[in-house]
């Protein structure tokens, strides 16, 4: 047996064996492992997508709620300012009314005072007329001299003064 003996059959069988090993590795080692790895990668991608979707939805909801809150705040603000405006109007109206009424009262009081003054004047005129007519009757009834004239005048003046003093 030589040191180097070539067996063509051995070479052919080795080539076949390498191909068989390739098949075994592919079918029984790489295929199952790849299946698992791919499935895991797929699930990871899926989970990531789901998480992203959920985050997006949450963001969308947050945005909607923000809008709604802003709307509500806006409405509240409008309502408040409306109420404020109405209150101011009401206030103005009440003050105006009060002012008007006060003016009315003052006016009424003034008119009343005037009327009273007029009544008093009329009274005085009436009294003066009475005094004058009484004086005239006395003059017509008594003698006409300077003394009586003077006493009559003084009488009249003192009466008129009394009337004025009232």
């Amino acid at each position: 047996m030589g040191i180097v003996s070539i067996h063509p059959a051995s070479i052919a069988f080795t080539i076949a064996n390498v191909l068989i090993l390739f098949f075994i590795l592919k079918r029984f080692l790489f295929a199952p492992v790849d299946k698992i790895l791919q499935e895991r990668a797929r699930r990871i991608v899926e989970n990531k997508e789901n998480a992203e979707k959920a985050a997006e939805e949450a963001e969308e909801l947050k945005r909607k709620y923000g809008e709604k809150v802003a709307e509500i705040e806006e409405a509240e603000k409008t309502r408040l300012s409306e109420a404020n405006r109405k209150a101011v109007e009401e206030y103005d109206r009440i003050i105006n009314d009060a002012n008007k009424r006060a003016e009315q009262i003052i006016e009424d009081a003034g008119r009343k005072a005037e009327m009273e003054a007029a009544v008093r004047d009329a009274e005085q005129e009436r009294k003066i007329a009475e005094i004058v007519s009484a004086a005239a009757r006395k003059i017509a009834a008594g003698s006409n001299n300077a003394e009586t004239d003077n006493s009559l005048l003084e009488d009249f003046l003192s009466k008129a003064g009394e009337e004025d003093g009232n």
Partner: protein
Amino acid sequence: MDLGEKLVEELGVKPLFSIGPVIITESIVNTWILLVIVLIACILLTRGFTVENPGKRQLAVEAFVTWVRDLTHSMLGDEAVGYSWFTVTMLFFIGLTNLSALIETAVSDEYTFMKPPTKDLNVTIALALMSIVIVEIAGIHRKGVGGWLKSFTKPIAVITPINILEIIIKPLSLCMRLFGNIFGGFIIMELLKILVPLAIPIPFSCYFEIFDALLQAYVFVFLTSIYISEAVEQEG
């Protein structure tokens, strides 16, 4: 039997039996046994794999498969990555056949169980032949027959004979390197066992039968990868 005779006998390949004119040698039988072991190991290792909460065994297998794939991808480069199936298979084949020396047991004068098949020159010749065929197929596939023929005149026409010689030199060096290393390691181990049978051979055994075994598998695959990526390289 003196040492020289024993080594010469070790070099030779013992035919175990023959089917008609076809002689089956022990290295072929040992390879078959190895294939069966690999098949059983693969089935057992990948049993009950789950996508969620993988066990330690599954994680180890996954990590190993990913590592082997990344290793061959990085050796081949992106362009030749399609040939990784071949380099992965080669890595397993050479690594396992080299490591089988660890459980080498002489059953009889005729048959040594798990005598590493890579110590048989015929096996390494077959591996080298497959390598060079794949390398040239990769080149033809990439460049077309014309482009592949033209690539022999690159980079300058003068070196065309050298390029043609490389078709023989590349596989020859691959096969001889593998065979020489495994056989050389075997001779050194045999000599050591004769000189100091106790304890001392253990670290050497670790070196030659584990480290060198895996290293040679790596070197073979690494060189094949380089040849393939060279073959698919586009010039300009």
